[in-house]
């Protein structure tokens, strides 16, 4: 579904990614792990074209998307839940959902705000509140809802549960599991290994802009040295 090959990305003259290879198949949930500042967000930005890689190839559903503008890439079916959530503060909860929603006629059944409220009932009570007034957990739910409203085939979550209370975290993991079993492909970045090894199929570990380890959950659980070396746990 998504394939990154040999991606090199820079911020100005500083190189942040040194030849990243990542592959996500349809229906898979994959995690991208790594300590702070290793290049996870940069990888996400490179996929969406927010930071344009200098070198490499990116294909999504067999189509070359390298160098395409972010809105085109998003329209092809990549939904982003960004680091820091980036909720539109001056828009209400409902407006956050509908402003950038997908508006196709036939084919895929569009997500509606009602579906999102069913997924996250707390949002249903706050539809008219501005985004700036939500708690962190609510903002994250709204960010997920907003991304789903664009009808993605691949959902990317950067820091899926950062700073959230355990109960909200559990709710997000449940939601991701349900979305996966409904057929959505997911790339998730987070620090909670236990949850990730439980719900993800495969994992990549990034270290200083390079993929240094890849494998399935079984292999990751069985390899304490890797966790020690690259994740510091």
């Amino acid at each position, binding site marked *: 579904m998504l394939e990154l090959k040999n991606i090199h990305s820079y911020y100005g003259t500083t190189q942040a990614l040194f030849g990243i290879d990542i592959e996500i198949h349809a229906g898979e949930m994959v995690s991208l792990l790594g300590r702070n500042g290793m290049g996870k967000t940069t990888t996400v930005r490179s996929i969406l074209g927010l930071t344009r890689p200098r070198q490499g190839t990116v294909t999504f559903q067999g189509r070359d998307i390298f160098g395409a503008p972010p*809105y085109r890439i998003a329209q092809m079916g990549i939904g982003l839940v*960004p680091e820091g959530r980036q909720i*539109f503060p*001056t828009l209400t909860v409902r*407006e956050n959902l509908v402003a950038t929603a997908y508006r196709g006629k036939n084919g895929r059944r569009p997500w509606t705000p009602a579906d999102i409220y069913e997924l996250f009932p707390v949002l249903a009570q706050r539809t008219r509140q501005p985004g700036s007034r939500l708690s962190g957990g609510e903002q994250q739910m709204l960010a997920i809802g907003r*991304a789903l409203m*664009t009808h993605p085939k691949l959902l990317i979550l950067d820091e899926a549960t950062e700073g959230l209370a355990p109960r909200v975290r559990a709710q997000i993991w449940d939601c991701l599991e349900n979305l996966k079993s409904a057929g959505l492909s997911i790339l998730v970045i987070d620090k909670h290994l236990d949850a990730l090894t439980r719900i993800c199929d495969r994992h990549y570990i990034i270290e200083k802009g390079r993929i240094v380890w890849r494998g399935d959950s079984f292999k990751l659980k069985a390899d304490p040295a890797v966790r020690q070396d690259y994740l510091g746990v």
Partner: protein
Amino acid sequence: MSMQLWVVQTLNGLQLGVMLFLMSAGLTLVFGIMNLINLAHGSLYMLGAYLAATFQALTGSFFIACLLAVPLVMGIGMLMEMSILRRLYDRDHLDQVLATFALILFFNELVRMTWGPQAYFMAIPESLSGTVEILPGIPYPAYRLTIVLAGSGVAVGLYLFIGRTRLGMIIRAGATHREMVGALGVNIKLLYTFVFGMGAAMAGFAGMMAGPILSVETGMGEPIMILAFVVIVIGGIGSVRGAFAAAVLVGVADTFGRILLPPALSSMAIYILMAGVLCFRPQGLFPAHG
């Protein structure tokens, strides 16, 4: 002061206010969303007046002239955005001021070459040339009243558009999180061109409405631009609501300043108003982003 004078001057103040609003709405959106200072906004006002006057002379109808001139100015504005202004968004304000000042010179010269150096005549449409008795014994020119009503209509329309429609939501979202709006599938460049076109259409409309009561001449956009900048600063940059409140405030203050204050003070009235507002609300009356 007599009752009649009060009513008439209040209406005059409102009329200047809606004109200022039509000018400053586009300016504040463009400044607030694209972070662009566009001095050449007044040129669109001037073009609106010249084009409408020309179409009026050709067709004999003010209303057909309006229907032709406003979309045309919108188109010119969009072309201007795509060819020149788009390159200035990421530059600093000094570059923007220089480049758009050059555009003023360009448009003034273009107008002089096309229409000649003399002021161009534009007639008040026949059907609006009379007066309306707004209160018993107080007549007011119908055309000026039309300006107040049409301008208010545009203000309400714009308010509903920004507040209620999906495109309006995207415009508001883009004002705070431009990159994110793009990452969710919206073509920001196109959005900006459209927003700019909307502002241009309103400026063109204002110029057209002003045509019959002021003189249609090169450089006619500059004085109103200065007032429009005062308006967007008082209103809060980026806020359409603020622009409306401030435009009415400035329009009324300027009009009454002229009749109530000695001449030396009256020309300063709106700047004193601006200083006063900024003293208490440095972000303007309605700060756009929290």
